[in-house]
């Protein structure tokens, strides 16, 4: 799964890694998550009250609408991305199969990567796709975290909206957690988890772009990764 042939990652080589749907999904999801995190924060801790008649305002309504609109886009994108994981190239699949935790090689790669971040290695290893450490974090935060947010989010959404989201999610998610307040709390907590991940993700991508022998930021824009 982790491709590491000499020729592909040799200095000067360029590989097509991220196909267009993957790149599009990455940036749409990134935008959605920013909107979701900010609006989510203001759902839980609303802005100072507006004055005047209630009929003149719909501030909380718009904030919630933005959250739900971004949520729908994020969820549809997530489903489409799973489809692409099945039909796309092997790099598209990486994020949607559990990390190969029984593969010693993979663990060796992980420790190498950790040592690299602790300044104990001079060079990181080269990977066409994701390195093991990055893959683990992405799998937990985005694949599992994203799924968790979609399931708990639509469960909360179905409480008010009723309809399909109630039948499909609220009806079993709310009892599973005990009560709605618990679902809110977990949705909120995992939202923070995703924020922490994004801080690390953006930092690591920029750092590796500069310090590692492979490109990162341009790869998720153009799809091509170059090695030096």
């Amino acid at each position: 799964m982790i491709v590491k042939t000499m020729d592909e990652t040799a200095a000067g080589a360029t590989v097509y890694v991220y196909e267009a749907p993957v790149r599009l999904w990455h940036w749409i999801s990134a935008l959605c998550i920013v909107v979701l995190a900010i609006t989510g924060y203001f759902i839980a801790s609303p802005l100072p009250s507006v004055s005047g008649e209630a009929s003149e305002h719909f501030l909380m309504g718009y904030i919630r609408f933005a959250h739900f609109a971004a949520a729908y886009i994020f969820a549809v994108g997530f489903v489409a991305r799973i489809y692409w994981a099945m039909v796309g190239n092997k790099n598209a699949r990486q994020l949607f199969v559990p990390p190969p935790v029984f593969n010693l090689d993979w663990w060796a790669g992980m420790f190498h990567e950790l040592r690299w971040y602790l300044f104990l290695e001079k060079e990181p290893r080269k990977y066409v796709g994701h390195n093991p450490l990055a893959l683990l974090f992405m799998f937990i935060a985005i694949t599992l975290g994203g799924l968790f947010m979609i399931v708990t989010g639509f469960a909360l959404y179905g409480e008010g909206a009723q309809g399909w989201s109630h039948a499909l999610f609220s009806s079993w998610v709310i009892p599973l957690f005990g009560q709605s307040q618990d679902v809110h709390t977990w949705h909120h907590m995992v939202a923070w988890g995703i924020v922490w991940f994004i801080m690390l993700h953006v930092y690591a991508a920029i750092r590796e772009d500069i310090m590692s022998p492979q490109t990162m930021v341009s790869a998720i824009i153009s799809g091509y990764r170059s090695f030096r």
Partner: protein
Amino acid sequence: MVSDKGATMEIETFYEVMRRQGITRRSFLKFCSLTAASLGLAPGFAPKIAHAMETKPRTPVIWLHGLECTCCSESFIRSAHPLTKDVVLSMLSLDYDDTLMAAAGYQAEEIIADIRKKYKGNFILAVEGNPPLNEDGMYCIHGGRPFVEVLKETAADAKAIISWGSCASWGCVQAAKPNPTRATPVHKVITDKPIIKVPGCPPIAEVMTAVITYMLTFDRIPELDRQGRPKMFYGQRIHDKCYRRAHFDAGQFVEHWDDDAARKGYCLYKMGCKGPTTYNACSTVRWNDGVSFPIQSGHGCIGCSEDGFWDKGGFYNRVTGIHQFGIEANADKVGETVAGVTGVAIAAHAAASALSRARHKDQNKEGN
């Protein structure tokens, strides 16, 4: 309202019982249409209810009290409509309710034995409060024996069980951490009978009478949700029907108990109102003959009909904590702290990376 012993001896219909208790036919018919309306049924159902009550043998109800505060009984006997109160109470044929009945001691305990024998598999067991299980149940004694034993015995012969209030349904405050007596909700002790949960601390009187009337007249259990609550009263959140909802959507909130917004009746969300997470009928049925309900009197909902409401952090906080990991701080405090630490760590790591890279370059230069 508390039947004499003779009443339990021959099997009567509901109608006969009511007539015997001095209720006129006119009142009886009125009651039938009222019941149909309160259950949200079409007017055509009134004659059906009347017919059922004229022909069906009445179903006795045994009302047991475990670890509780009697607020459910207090609520129940204040059921708003006087007609409903009279008729429901007589119809209920509360053969046994140790708080309401006249009999006491052995005489009283005999009634339970009597009903269990005569109406085996045919009476309803209403439970207020719950059994504590620690020390073999010695924290709650009923007629000289642990309540849990009486509960199990009586439940064995019952047709169905009604769990009144949050005690019987979820455990309530006596089950709050660390739950020294191990107070346990009824459905965790009795697992082989249909259980109807009517949570709330207490439940609304009209909800209680409607649920029991429905079961007695139609001889079936009202439609329940996944958590065992009647959908007709617990299908929506307080927030969905709250008259302050317009202020919520507008973004107008009470920020302090004594501010202008509080006087204007703005939404209580920021004061920790649990209306958005609480399933109950308060915002529609209201309390005390529809006079008011907590939010209408200016206080947020505390979520009294929800499982675990007593252990979910402050009644006055919107964002509450996560107890699973023993973290008592709220989600935002944890989130912000970790985000701050992550930010500092990133900055430090970036600085160290820059240094190491510079040194590396120097070394490379030296090597050249």
